[in-house]
């Protein structure tokens, strides 16, 4: 579904220095796969996500969605950001309805759909609240509902649980998997947490430090549905985590070699 073809990204920093953030990334992501992009800070993983999202254009190479080059953002690739990015001037319901209304869905129908989604993410009763009145975890649920509301084929999640406390994070991880199980969208999930990556995904793409390159792609052969309590005690899960953590340690050193 998504093809990333020799993508590189160079940024101009202040002055005349240029920073190579991504180097020759090639990656194919199948329909319905839950793929985690994992790496140390500054490895360009968010940049890669933004390129797929069409928010940033690669300086080299091309990213394609269903064969067509990605030229800009669109409702087929829905983002969920770490900072939530909710519209503060709209209520929860207003935020979730935004996408469908933009697509031309009639108000009544959009509202009905949105209320369903809000209930699905566990926020029934909060439809008329403003984002400022919600906790971090609740805001992220709204952000998720808002993106799901316009039925994207791909979910682009940029460290969505990074700003939340550990307890809320584990709850939302569970909830995310439950929601995902329903229609198995393609998900690109950026994170720097190894156990989060292994817990959630089918495939973990391990990246090196800047300039970001793909060090390894690890297939996670763990059964679904995944339950945290079971997995934490599962030796296969533990092996994956240890293995990948070792890879990350190594990458933190060899990022500079050409």
């Amino acid at each position: 579904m998504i093809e990333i073809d020799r993508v590189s990204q160079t940024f101009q920093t202040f002055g005349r220095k240029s920073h190579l953030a991504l180097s020759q990334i090639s990656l194919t992501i199948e329909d319905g796969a839950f793929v985690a992009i994992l790496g140390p800070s500054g490895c360009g993983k968010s940049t890669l996500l933004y390129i797929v999202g069409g928010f940033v254009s690669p300086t080299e190479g091309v990213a394609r969605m269903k064969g067509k080059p990605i030229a800009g953002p669109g409702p087929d690739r829905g983002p969920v950001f770490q900072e939530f990015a909710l519209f503060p001037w709209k209520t929860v319901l207003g935020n979730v309805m935004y996408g469908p209304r933009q697509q031309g869905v009639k108000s009544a129908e959009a509202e009905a759909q949105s209320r369903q989604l809000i209930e699905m993410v566990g926020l029934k009763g909060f439809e008329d609240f403003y984002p400022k009145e919600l906790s971090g975890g609740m805001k992220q649920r709204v952000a998720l509902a808002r993106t799901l509301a316009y039925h994207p084929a791909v979910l682009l999640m940029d460290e969505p649980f990074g700003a939340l406390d550990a307890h809320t994070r584990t709850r939302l991880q569970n909830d995310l998997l439950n929601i995902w199980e329903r229609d198995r969208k393609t998900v690109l999930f950026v994170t720097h947490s190894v156990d989060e990556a292994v817990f959630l995904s089918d495939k973990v793409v391990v990246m090196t430090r800047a300039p970001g390159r793909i060090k390894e792609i690890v297939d996670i052969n763990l059964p679904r549905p995944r339950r945290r309590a079971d997995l934490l005690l599962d030796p296969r899960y533990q092996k994956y985590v240890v293995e990948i953590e070792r890879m990350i340690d190594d990458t933190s050193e060899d990022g500079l070699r050409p």
Partner: protein
Amino acid sequence: MNARGLTTDVLLGIVPIALAVALWQAISSFGYAPVTLLPPPGLVFARLAQQLLTGTFQQAIGVTLFRLFAGFSIAVVLGVGFGLAAAASPAVNAVVRPVVRVLAPLPKVALYPALLLLLGFGHESKITLVAADALFPILLSTYYGASMVEQKLIWSAMAAGTPRRQIMFKVVLPAAVPSILTGCRIGLVISCIVVFLAEMITSTEGLGHLLVTAARTFQAVDMFVPLITISLLGLILNGLLQGLRAWLLRGFPEV
């Protein structure tokens, strides 16, 4: 701030005003100042109440308010318009930015004689001066608010399918409203000040004119009345704007 904190603040705040008025009263009563220079507060407020009922005074207020609102409205339209345009388009920004840098520190009141020559001594010159002075804070705060809009908000809207040309009105403008309203508040105060001063410098009607007329005839009481009136008007308008702000920004986190 809880209710109790609010009342203590208010009470505490009334104290200096009450003290000031009391001081005023004391100075007059003890004869430290002749009535011709500093009339007692009672007399001034009585005169104010009396004047508020007369047609001529009401008309003066009307004239001043009209010029104030006209100038302020023009400033809002132009300020928000140019501010948004400059935030959206680097080309516009390149032109607007240096012009604003040059014109902002210039005392616009110095242009007043030119305006009088070009537009006459009536409403137009005052309205233009008000607009010219109120424009810059509004323009700058609009520009600031619009350019500081969180990138991720814009991206979220784009991903939801909002076409580029609608982003300005659906995302940037609402997100910039807090900043715009702050600029408007400053602009409103400036409008009050400028209209009054312009009427003092040259005019045939309005509150400022009343003050100058009273000064010429050494009527101290009649000098205080328009001054207090414009202060009260400023306070009331400011309060209204704050109310509007609270309503418009009911969703926004406290700034």
